[in-house]
């Protein structure tokens, strides 16, 4: 039966942390809030935001998708190979690659009844392997003659980088999907209780297919950005991205057990986790201390710890009431 605890989504923590971080950076480093830094930052982090959005859906449905990092790599090498045909071809192809891997995940999860963690763990290996096979173990050059790289490097209206525009559109789409379409409601219910949802007559399998295919598609799209924004399909890129995506989602307050979540909080979470890298780079340039790569990981872990503990305290407090 149902638990009694009141469990409203609590995501104040991540917004507060985000504002504090931006203020910290802006006050401490001269060129932090320059247009160049903001635009390149957002452009680079677009990929992370995309997969974090997909991951939000997966996690809200009570699952997890560990394959996204590898799918980004796979999509990027495939897309690089078709880049001479231009972005009109490459973009759908990249998304399709993601859809295909997502569909395999969904098949293994819903038909073979393998738990999502393991199913997508296998896909993480499988997609990485495929990426290496397809690319013959090398990064794949893209065509600089077609309009392909314009997508990753160009700007809309000469101002906003295309990846940022794309991510914005995807974000709005995700929001509508979650808040306005039955699909969003269904996946939240399934995350709340898969068994109950089935008994209530939801087509659980169909919704789960949608969720994993969506996550795959967004990873595929991120792969297109990777290939066109960096000029190569990269079979080794994206390692560990799934974990930062999961961290972004959870830092945003979405329950890993499913059933509760927010798209905008994930956005904040992803930006927050990206900011820490940016700030570390600026700190290393400010001339006081230089953090080695190792100290950087310690600090990143410590930062995650602080954010997560603050979140936990807020949630626990809400629960106690």
């Amino acid at each position, binding site marked *: 039966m149902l638990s009694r605890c009141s469990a409203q989504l609590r995501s104040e923590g991540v917004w507060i942390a985000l504002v504090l971080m931006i203020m910290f950076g802006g006050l401490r480093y001269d*060129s932090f809030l320059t247009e*160049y830094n903001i635009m390149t930052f957002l452009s680079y982090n677009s990929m992370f935001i995309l997969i974090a959005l997909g991951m939000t859906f997966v996690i809200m449905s009570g699952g997890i998708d560990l394959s996204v990092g590898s799918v980004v790599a796979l999509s990027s090498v495939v897309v690089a190979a078709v880049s001479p045909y231009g972005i009109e071809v490459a973009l759908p192809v990249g998304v399709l690659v993601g859809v295909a891997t997502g569909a395999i995940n969904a098949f293994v999860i819903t038909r073979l009844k393998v738990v999502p963690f393991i199913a997508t763990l296998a896909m993480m290996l499988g997609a990485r392997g495929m990426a290496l096979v397809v690319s013959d*173990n*090398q990064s794949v050059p893209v065509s*600089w003659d077609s309009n392909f790289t314009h997508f990753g490097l160009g700007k809309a209206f000469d101002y906003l980088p295309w990846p940022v525009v794309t991510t914005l559109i995807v974000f709005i789409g995700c929001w509508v999907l979650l808040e306005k379409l039955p699909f969003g409601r269904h996946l939240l219910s399934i995350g709340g209780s898969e068994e109950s949802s089935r008994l209530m007559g939801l087509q659980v399998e169909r919704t789960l297919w949608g969720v994993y295919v969506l996550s795959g598609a967004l990873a595929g799209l991120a792969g297109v950005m990777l290939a066109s*924004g960096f*000029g190569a399909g*990269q079979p*080794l890129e994206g390692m560990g991205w799934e974990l930062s995506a999961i961290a972004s989602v959870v830092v945003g307050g979405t329950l890993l057990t499913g059933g509760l979540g927010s798209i905008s909080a994930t956005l904040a979470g992803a930006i927050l986790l990206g900011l820490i890298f940016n700030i570390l780079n600026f700190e290393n340039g400010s*001339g006081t201390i230089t953090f080695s790569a190792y100290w950087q990981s310690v600090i990143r872990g410590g930062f995650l710890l602080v954010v997560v503990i603050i979140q936990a305290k807020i949630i626990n407090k809400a629960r106690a009431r």
Partner: protein
Amino acid sequence: GLPVLEQKERYKVGFAQSESNNPWRIAETKSFKEAALSCNWDLVYTDAAGSAAKQVSDVDSMIAQQVDVIFLPPREERPLLPAVMRAKSQGIPVFLVDRSVDAKVAQAGRDYVSFLGSNFIEQGQLAAQWLIENTGGQAKIIELEGTTGSSPANDRRKGFDDEIAKHAGMTILASQSGDFARDKGRKVTETLLQSHPDVNVIYAHNDEMAIGAIQALEASGRKAGTDVLIVSIDGTRDALQAIIDGKMALTVESSPFFGPLACATLKRYVGGETIEPWVRVSDRIFTIDNAAKHIDEAY
């Protein structure tokens, strides 16, 4: 044309390291930090943790911080192109270190100043040539590759394999990835020794895997250096010691000490000199003849 760098007391120099998970990279970073001290640089150091995309983003944050010059050891040849191009468009000269970028798109003297480094393919060739000479053209080889998909692994394999293919007596029995790591190198060798017991040469893409291979050989009761010849690339202290101990035959140097070279090259550039497109680093070969002499300079 290339951006002009005015004469200054101190330069703000960006060094965008690609990763720090192996001795070679660590030595390279150390060398740059030392150079920063001796050359009066304010070093802006970033670490991409093995991600080419992050390395581009790191370079972006250096550009945002308005560094004077960037030294970039690209993690990969192709994905770093945008970083080079953006630095160029912002008027910041870039020097590539130890690995170049795709020459079809970006060119030294036009898009970036110069490439300082050696040639991975050549390193593989050197190892192969030494082997051919010293085995009389007869060998059964196991190749331990670097991280699958990484460019030193690809180049060192290409240089070596192409050279070996010219000699009928030389066969490569198996070629598998040991991830540039000692532990994995050991495990892979252990396994390959079982399926290819007739091996008499092991070629590793770096010294760490070669040392792992020595351990695997010893665990299987074979004598490294006599039953099986081991050749590799890098020239680390542990490898030179192994050569002195007779367990390893050869390592081709791949020097990580780019700091002094970077410093000198930058001085020439500031002085208005035109820098040659490739500032070559010549790689030495370490064998039993010279290992003891050089071990103290190794890392």
